[in-house]
């Protein structure tokens, strides 16, 4: 039967019906205008010409059980009337979806199989409102979901990104940079004192070693031949200080570490070598014990006066050397070097 024929039949008091068969086999007839509100039924009627009699009933999809179907028919019956205002429709919709969650899901499924998009949107919206803002446990309870994920998997899923070693490193660098920045702030206040200290140490050392201050400074550039380890440390430290120097510049300029990702593998290697002062002084052997005691005490005091981090950092791996690249840079570096040197010196003395 074509649409035209159906239309002709309408003016009579006799309404035209469409025959529909639900999944359980039962057949019922529905007013034409109500049934045709569903695109899927509409399609079946127009394209295949079925539904006009009991024998040729349209069989509805599996997901439409009789209870859901009657709900859908109620919905269609209300909305297919063109005369309803938007407010009326909205009020009806809000009351319509008040049902338990299970039926809501069934209704969504049934509406979807009948291609009734407005109802699908309405029910989806309702389901979204149910899910919104609830904890996973609550949601699982509402929808009867099985709790079948392992504890690890349950950790916030975005933590999976931590599997990427580069991202892990990035986060560690972030943390380090933040700490460094804090340190630098703190150290800026301590710097003034340190400057004074350095001079006294220099003098002290020159006195101990019987050299004038100038020579002391120059000789600090000499590498210690005895310890191979020191040499290695020296070269790697230089390289690493340069790397970190440039890296820090990068970081400070761009505020990001993404660009440093390609640099990271090399930087990592550098960080892993233990740090030490690059300057080593040729240590004289002729020191009398009294002087040595005095020296020990001075060294202890001095090491404590400087930020004790320096001493601590020697015991740890993977900590960047604190280089500041502002005007005080050289001073800071110098001070750090001296303290590290002093520590080694002390150890050397112990060995003697």
């Amino acid at each position, binding site marked *: 039967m074509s649409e035209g024929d159906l239309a002709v039949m309408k003016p009579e008091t006799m309404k035209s019906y469409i025959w529909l068969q639900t999944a359980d086999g039962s057949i019922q007839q529905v007013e034409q205008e109500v049934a045709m509100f569903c695109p899927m039924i509409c399609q079946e009627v127009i394209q295949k010409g079925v539904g006009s009699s009991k024998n040729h009933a349209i069989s509805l999809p599996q997901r439409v*059980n009789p209870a859901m179907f009657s709900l859908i028919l109620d919905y269609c019956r209300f909305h297919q009337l063109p005369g309803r205002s938007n407010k009326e429709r909205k009020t009806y919709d809000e009351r319509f979806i008040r049902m338990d*969650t*299970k039926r809501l*899901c*069934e209704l*969504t*499924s049934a509406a*979807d199989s009948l291609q009734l998009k407005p109802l*699908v*949107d309405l029910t*989806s*919206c309702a*389901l*979204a409102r149910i*899910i*919104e*803002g609830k904890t*996973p446990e609550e*949601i*699982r309870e509402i*929808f*009867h*979901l*099985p*709790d*079948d*994920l392992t504890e690890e*998997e*349950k950790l*916030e*899923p*975005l933590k*999976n*990104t931590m599997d*990427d070693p580069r991202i892990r490193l990035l986060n560690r660098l*972030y943390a380090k940079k933040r700490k460094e920045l804090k340190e630098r702030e703190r150290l800026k206040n301590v710097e003034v004192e340190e400057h004074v200290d350095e001079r006294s140490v220099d003098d002290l050392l020159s006195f101990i070693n019987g050299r004038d201050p100038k020579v002391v400074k120059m000789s600090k550039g000499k590498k210690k031949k005895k310890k191979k380890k020191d040499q290695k440390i020296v070269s790697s430290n230089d390289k690493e200080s340069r790397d970190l120097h440039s890296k820090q510049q990068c970081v400070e300029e*761009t*505020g*990001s570490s*993404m*660009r440093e990702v390609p640099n990271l593998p090399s930087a990592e290697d550098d960080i892993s070598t233990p740090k030490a002062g690059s300057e080593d002084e040729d240590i004289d052997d002729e020191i009398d014990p009294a002087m040595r005691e005095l020296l020990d005490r001075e060294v202890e005091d001095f090491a404590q006066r400087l930020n004790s981090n320096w001493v601590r950092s020697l015991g740890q791996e993977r900590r960047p050397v604190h280089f500041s690249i502002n005007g005080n840079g050289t001073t800071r570096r110098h001070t750090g070097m001296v303290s590290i040197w002093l520590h080694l010196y002390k150890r050397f003395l112990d060995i003697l």
Partner: protein
Amino acid sequence: MGESPDFISDLPQSIIENILTRLSIRDAIRTSVLSSKWRYKWSTLTDLVFDEKCVSPANDRCVVETSLVRFITGVLLLHQGPIHKFQLSTSFLQCRPDIDQWLLFLSRNGIKELVLELGEGEFRVPSCLFNCLKLTRLELCHCEFDPPQYFKGFSSLKSLNLHQILVGPEVIESLISGCPLLEFLSLSYFDSLVLSISAPNLMYLYLDGEFKDIFLENTPKLVAISVSMYMHEDVTDFEQSSDYNLVKFLGGVPLLEKLVGYIYFTKYLSIGDDPGRLPITYIHLKTIELYQVSFEDANEILVLLRLVTHSPNLKELKVSASPIQLFPLEEEGFDLFERDYFDYKLPSLETVKITDVSGIRNELEFIRFLLGTSPVLETVIVSSSLIDKEAKMDMVIELLRYPRVSPRAQFLFLQD
């Protein structure tokens, strides 16, 4: 429904995505811990909308910034399939290389709608954006826009919205010409822009800023125009054009349905050599809203009259008089209304709203004109900026005196 008590996980993916799209991105991703079936249901969502609410709030701005960056990067890495819409609206992110990387990722995943509303900070749009030729909607805010030489335009772009963008004016012109399917254009917060717009499919135009000169060269399909034109102190720029701006701007928009103008728009239109007649009739124009019209300037009133009389289907007229007198003029004895203007008819005008009336002669004459030419007029809403109650009363009495062609015409006087 059957054996398993779980009644939502087996719904078709299209429905699940329908539901998840209605949740915030954070809630949608949290569904991945519900059960093993739900683990990756969210990962094929095609519309991603981010803002600072995606991460837990914190007092330290840097913390929020970092966690937001991590969140977005994480989402993009775990996402599967195409991404059609990406929206990022937050003032917490300004200028970060992370954004470059996200845009690169999006450009490789078929992005169609891109909305970037960043904080103030001159983020420079990376060149990968100009390879996203499937873009249908682009919205940028607080960015620097500098396309490479080879860039010819977005061939599928339908909606373009640029707000406070650092860009050369010739770039905008070539961008608009290079997007032949453009239907919606919004340019706001620009300085001293001289623009010639050629967009054959453009339907909605929204301009807001300091424009020196605009020429609608080829916009035959325009349906709605809204312009807020600010003016520099240097007024002489406006006076230079010899073409009548009204014709230059509104001469080629026969399909216009709604016209809205703020600040100095009417003043701008009034500049130029007046040819006398308007060459075009706006058959579809139903709404005219012109604000800050200076009723002391004869040229501006002329613009208003011309538009009104050339729109036979005009239903609604909203006018506000200008309290700002940038160009203090002596009130000319205006015989404009004594000309053949009263021979005109406004056959469809139903609603008139005139605000900030200060009671000067020209304003009252204009209202008299409307009352005498609108046979179906129903409501005339008048609100005044006068403080003096006496003056207000005089004005009201005067207005009520005027003859009305429409029997149903009613006055509504609003109190401020």
